[in-house]
C-alpha cells in the first residue's frame, strides 16, 4: 500500500473521520476497547484460502534484516549496545531496517538489534551485560546510577530480611525479579490507535484530579504521583510518534495507522522497560475492524493487510534487551515473550476468530517460523473448523504455537483477556500482575526431611524444624506433616520477598508507559509460582506406595534414598499419584493466600515452564522418586522425564486434574510432537492434532 495517502504529518493535513463506518456505543464516551471490538469485528468462519503471501517488499526487508543483522547477532550474541544513552520512550532518534522499511516503522534504538541500557532495575546487571557484550560502560552513566539515582535493586536489598538472603543463597528461592524488570504487564496498546494520545492524557488528568480534594494519605499521594508519571509517559509517546513523522495525538484514521499507532504504544514500552515478559495483548479482532472497513472502502487489498501484519511481526521479532549471560541461562536464551493472544469465544457466544487471526498465523509461513511473537491460541472445541485446522497445520509446519483453554480463561477473566508471558491471563488494560518467578517446591521437601539443612551444602538454612528421625523407611504421614510445616517457612519467606520486590519496583522502576495504557483503578495479582511439582508428587507417591529408606552421610544429612518396590507416578492419568500432585498445589495455594499481599494483590499461582528447570535442578539434591541430584526438573506441570509411560494424552489428563482455582496464573504442559507422530498424511496430522487439543481442553467423563 502507499503510505503517503494515509499517513498524516504533523503539519496537519486534513484526515478523514477516524471512526467513520464504525458502530458507536459506550466506547465513544470513555475508554472501552471490548465494547468497540464486539460492536465492530467480523467473526470469520471460513478457511485460509483468502490469505496473501509475503509481498516483495516484505521479503526484501526480511532478507536485509537476516543478512545484515540477525546473522551477525547469532555469531556474537549481542549485535551492539548503546552505552551512552539510558533508554527512554523518546531517547533515540528514528531508525529503520532499510529504505524499504516504511510499512510499520519504529525501532527500540536507532539501529536494528542495538540494545539499550535500562539501569532503573539495577546498575550491576547493566554493567555486567555491557562487559559481556565486549564493551566498556560509560563512567558518567555509571556515576548517575550508582551515586545519584537509586535503583530497584538497591531498594530491594535495603529491605530484604536475613531469611530471604539465606533462602536466595541456598537457591530454594531463585530467579526473583530483584535485579531486573518484572514485566508481566500488558499495556492496552490498542487505546493509542482508537482514541489517540491527547484523549488518553485528558482522561488520565481527569482521573488524577478526581481525587484532588481528598485528604492526604500515602495511597492518595502514590495515586497522584503515578498518574503524573503516566501523563509524562504519554507525552513522550507523542514525541516518539513525531520522531517518525506521525501525530499520535489524534486517533488512527486508517488500518495502516491503527497498526502503526498500536505498535508505537508497544514500542514505547519496550523502549522504557525490559521486563522479563513484554507481551503485546490481544490485537487481531481490533485490527480486523479497521481492515474490514478499509477493504470495503477499497483503499487497501488483502495483500496490503497481510503486509502490515507481516511488517508488525517483523518488528516484534527484533525486540532486544540487554541481558547478562546468567539471565540467558535462567531463561534458556533471550526470550521477551511478546505474546500475542488470539482465538477464543466472546461471552455472547460468537467466535472471536477473524480474518486477522488467520493473517497472524500466516506470518509464520510468510516469514518462516520464529519463537516471537509467542502466538497463543485460546482453544475451544467450538472454534470454527477452518481456524482449528489452520492452527493445527501451522503448528505442524512450524511448532511455533502455544495453546490455552479458552473456557478456563474466559470464565475467570472475561473475553478480552490476554496472556502475559507464557500462561498468565489478565484482562487487557484492567489488570496487571506482580511477577513472582518460582519457589523450589521440590527442594522444600528435602528441607522438610532434613530439618532445614541444605542437602547440597549441608548448611543449616532454616532453624527450629526437626527432620525425619531414625534410619528406617519413611512414613508418608510423618513426611507430609513435616513438608506442610516447612512450606510455611518457604512460602512465607518467598511471599515476603515478592512483597518487597514489587514495593521497590513500583518506587524505582515504575512502568509509567504501560500503566498509562491501563484504567486508573486496576486489578493486581501476585503471580506466585512453583517448580518441581512432578518430583514432589512422585517422591511422596514413592514414600506412600513403595518402601523408601533414607541414606545419611557421616553428619546425619540425608543425601540419598533407596526406593524399593513400585509406585504410581504423576502423568499417567493415575488418580493415586495425580491426587497427590493436586493436593500439593492446593496446599501451597492455601499457604500463599494466608499472607497479606502488597497493594492488596490477589494471590495466584502458576505451575509453568519458563525453562529455568536446569538452574533449579542444578541446585537440588536427590529424591525418593529416583530423581538424581543436579539434574534438570521437568518443565512446568510436566511429568518427570520418562515417568509418563502411558502416552501424551494420558499426561494431559493428569495435568487436567490440577484444580485451576489453585493455579489461576496458569499451568503449563510442554509436549513435543513430531509431525510424523501425528499421522501419515498432512490431512491426518491436522485432524489428529485438532483431536488432541480438543481432548486436552475438555473435562473428562
Amino acid at each position, binding site marked *: 500500500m502507499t503510505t503517503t495517502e494515509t499517513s498524516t504529518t504533523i503539519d496537519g493535513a486534513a484526515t478523514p473521520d477516524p471512526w467513520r463506518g464504525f458502530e458507536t456505543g459506550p466506547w465513544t464516551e470513555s475508554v472501552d476497547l471490548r465494547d468497540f471490538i464486539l460492536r465492530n469485528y467480523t467473526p470469520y468462519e471460513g478457511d485460509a484460502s483468502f490469505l496473501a503471501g509475503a509481498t516483495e517488499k516484505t521479503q526484501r526487508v526480511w532478507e536485509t534484516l537476516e543478512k545484515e543483522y540477525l546473522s551477525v547477532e547469532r555469531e556474537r550474541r549481542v549485535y551492539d549496545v548503546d552505552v551512552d544513552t539510558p533508554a527512554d520512550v523518546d531517547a533515540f532518534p528514528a531508525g529503520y531496517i532499510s529504505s524499504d522499511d516504511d510499512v510499520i516503522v519504529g525501532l527500540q534504538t536507532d539501529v536494528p538489534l542495538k540494545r539499550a541500557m535500562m539501569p532503573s532495575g539495577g546498575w550491576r546487571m547493566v554493567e555486567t551485560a555491557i562487559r559481556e557484550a565486549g564493551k566498556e560502560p560509560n563512567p558518567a552513566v555509571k556515576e548517575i546510577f550508582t551515586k545519584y539515582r537509586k535503583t530497584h535493586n538497591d531498594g530491594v536489598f535495603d529491605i530484604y530480611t536475613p531469611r530471604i538472603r539465606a533462602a536466595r543463597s541456598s537457591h530454594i528461592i531463585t530467579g526473583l525479579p530483584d535485579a531486573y524488570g518484572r514485566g508481566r504487564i500488558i499495556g492496552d496498546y490498542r487505546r493509542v490507535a482508537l482514541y489517540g494520545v491527547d484523549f488518553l492524557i485528558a482522561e488520565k488528568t481527569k482521573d488524577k484530579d478526581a481525587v484532588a480534594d481528598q485528604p492526604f494519605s500515602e495511597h492518595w499521594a502514590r495515586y497522584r504521583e503515578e498518574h503524573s508519571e503516566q501523563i509524562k509517559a504519554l507525552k513522550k509517546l507523542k514525541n516518539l510518534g513525531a520522531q517518525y513523522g506521525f501525530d499520535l495525538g489524534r486517533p488512527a484514521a486508517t488500518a495502516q495507522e491503527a497498526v502503526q499507532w498500536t505498535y508505537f504504544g508497544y514500542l514505547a514500552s519496550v523502549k522504557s522497560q525490559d521486563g522479563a515478559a513484554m507481551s503485546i495483548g490481544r490485537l487481531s479482532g481490533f485490527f480486523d475492524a479497521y481492515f474490514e472497513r478499509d477493504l470495503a472502502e477499497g483503499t487497501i487489498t488483502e495483500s496490503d493487510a497481510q503486509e502490515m501484519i507481516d511488517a508488525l511481526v517483523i518488528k516484534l521479532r527484533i525486540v532486544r534487551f540487554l541481558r547478562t549471560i546468567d539471565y540467558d541461562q535462567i531463561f534458556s536464551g533471550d526470550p521477551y515473550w511478546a505474546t500475542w493472544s488470539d482465538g477464543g469465544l466472546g461471552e455472547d457466544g460468537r467466535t472471536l476468530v477473524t480474518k486477522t487471526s488467520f493473517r497472524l498465523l500466516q506470518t509464520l509461513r510468510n516469514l518462516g517460523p520464529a519463537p516471537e511473537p509467542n502466538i497463543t491460541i485460546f482453544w475451544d*472445541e467450538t472454534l470454527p473448523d477452518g481456524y482449528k485446522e489452520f492452527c493445527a497445520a501451522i503448528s505442524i509446519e512450524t*511448532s*511455533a*504455537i*502455544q*495453546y*490455552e*483453554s479458552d473456557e*478456563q480463561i474466559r470464565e475467570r477473566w472475561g473475553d478480552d483477556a490476554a496472556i502475559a508471558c507464557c*500462561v498468565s491471563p489478565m484482562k487487557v488494560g484492567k489488570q496487571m500482575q506482580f511477577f513472582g518467578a518460582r519457589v523450589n517446591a521440590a527442594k522444600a521437601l528435602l528441607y522438610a526431611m532434613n530439618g532445614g539443612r541444605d542437602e547440597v551444602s549441608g548448611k543449616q538454612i532454616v532453624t527450629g524444624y526437626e527432620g525425619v528421625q531414625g534410619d528406617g523407611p519413611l512414613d508418608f504421614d510423618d513426611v507430609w506433616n513435616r513438608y506442610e510445616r516447612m512450606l510455611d517457612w518457604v512460602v512465607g519467606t518467598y511471599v515476603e520477598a515478592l512483597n518487597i520486590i514489587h514495593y521497590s519496583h513500583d518506587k524505582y522502576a515504575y512502568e509509567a508507559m504501560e500503566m498509562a495504557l491501563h484504567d486508573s483503578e486496576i486489578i493486581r495479582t501476585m503471580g506466585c509460582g512453583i517448580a518441581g511439582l512432578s518430583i514432589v508428587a512422585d517422591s511422596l507417591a514413592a514414600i506412600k506406595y513403595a518402601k523408601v529408606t533414607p541414606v545419611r552421610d557421616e553428619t546425619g544429612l540425608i543425601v540419598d534414598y533407596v526406593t524399593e518396590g513400585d509406585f*504410581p*507416578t504423576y502423568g*499417567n*492419568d*493415575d*488418580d*493415586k499419584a495425580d491426587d497427590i500432585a493436586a493436593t500439593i498445589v492446593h496446599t501451597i495455594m492455601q499457604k500463599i493466600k494466608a499472607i497479606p499481599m502488597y497493594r492488596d494483590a490477589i494471590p495466584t499461582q502458576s505451575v*509453568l515452564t519458563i525453562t529455568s528447570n536446569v538452574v533449579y535442578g542444578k541446585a537440588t539434591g536427590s529424591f525418593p522418586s529416583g530423581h538424581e541430584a543436579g539434574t534438570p526438573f521437568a518443565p*512446568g*506441570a510436566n511429568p518427570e522425564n*520418562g515417568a*509418563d*509411560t*502411558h*502416552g*501424551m*494424552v494420558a499426561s*494431559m489428563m493428569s*495435568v*487436567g486434574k490440577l484444580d*485451576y482455582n489453585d493455579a489461576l496464573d496458569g*499451568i*503449563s*504442559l*510442554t*509436549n*513435543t*510432537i*513430531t*509431525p*510424523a*507422530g*501425528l*499421522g*501419515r*498424511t498432512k490431512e*491426518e496430522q491436522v*485432524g*489428529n492434532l*485438532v*483431536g*488432541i*487439543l*480438543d*481432548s*486436552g*481442553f*475438555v473435562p*473428562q*467423563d
Partner: protein
Amino acid sequence: MTICEATPTTGADGASGDQGFEAPVGRAAGAGLVGLELSDADRSEKFARMRAGELGSVHSWELVTAVDGPGTRMTIFLSGCPLRCLYCHNPDTMAMRNGEPVEASELLLRIKRYRRIFKNSGGGITLSGGEVLMQPAFAATLLRGAKEMGIHTTIDTSGFLGAACTDEMLADIDLVLLDVKSGDPETYRKVTGRALEPTLKFGRRLAEFGTEIWLRFVLVPGLTDDPANVETIAEYAATLPTVSRVEVLPFHQMGKDKWESLGIPYELGDTQPPTNAEVDRVRDQFRAKGLTVY
C-alpha cells in the same frame, strides 16, 4: 491447562526417517498398567474366569495417536503369542504368564473414561499384543463392551489364530490391522516359526465379512525384502477388497535390549534398517497393485 509446544525433534532415528514399526516416536517403552487394579483371584478361579472372558493377561496400556489405527486410541497390549518373530519388538509379551491379571470390567471402566477423547479425535481402542486372539473370550468381552459404548474398535493381529475369532466377535470389530509377515510360506516360517496359510485365510474371511483391513508388512533387509516375497503379498492384498491401506514398516533395532534382558538369543543383532530407496521400492510394489500405501 496449557500446552506449550517446544521445538520438534526430528523424525524417528533410522535410515528411512520414517516411523519405526510398532514402536514409533511418542510411544514409551515398557509402559505399564498404571491406574488398573490387578485381580487377586486364585489360580483355578483365574482359569475359569479367563475362559469366561472376564479376566485377561495384560501387558500394558497406553494412549497413542496415529499409531494403531485412526485418531487417538487406547491400545491394550495382551500377553501371549503363538509366533516367535525374529524381529519381535515386544518379546516380553510372547509368554502369557508375563502378563498381569486384569478384569475386563476394570479395563472397560478405563475405556469409558476416554470416550470423549475417542469421539473428539476419531479414535477408539486397539487390542494388540502379543497376540490378541490368544485370549479370544477376553477380547470378545472388551470389544462388545466398547461397541456398547459406541467406540471404534481395532485389533492388531498376525491372523495366525484367525479361526479363534468368531463371527460374533467379527461383528464387533471395525478395523483389523493384519500383519502379514511374509508372502512366501518358507520365509514366513523362517520369520515366525509358523505357517502362513492361517493368516491368508483369515484375511479372506475378513474381506468376505466386509471388515476394513490395514495390511502391515515389516521390511527386514536380508529376511523379508526379496522382491518376489513382497510381490506375493502385494498380489494377495490386491485380492482383498476391504484393504484400505498398506503400511510398510521399516525394521528398526527397537526390541534388541528387551531380547537381551530376557536372555533369549536375538538373531537380527547385525541387521541394518532398510534404506529409503529399499522402502520406496517395496511401497511401489504395493502401489503398482493400485493400493494406498504408506
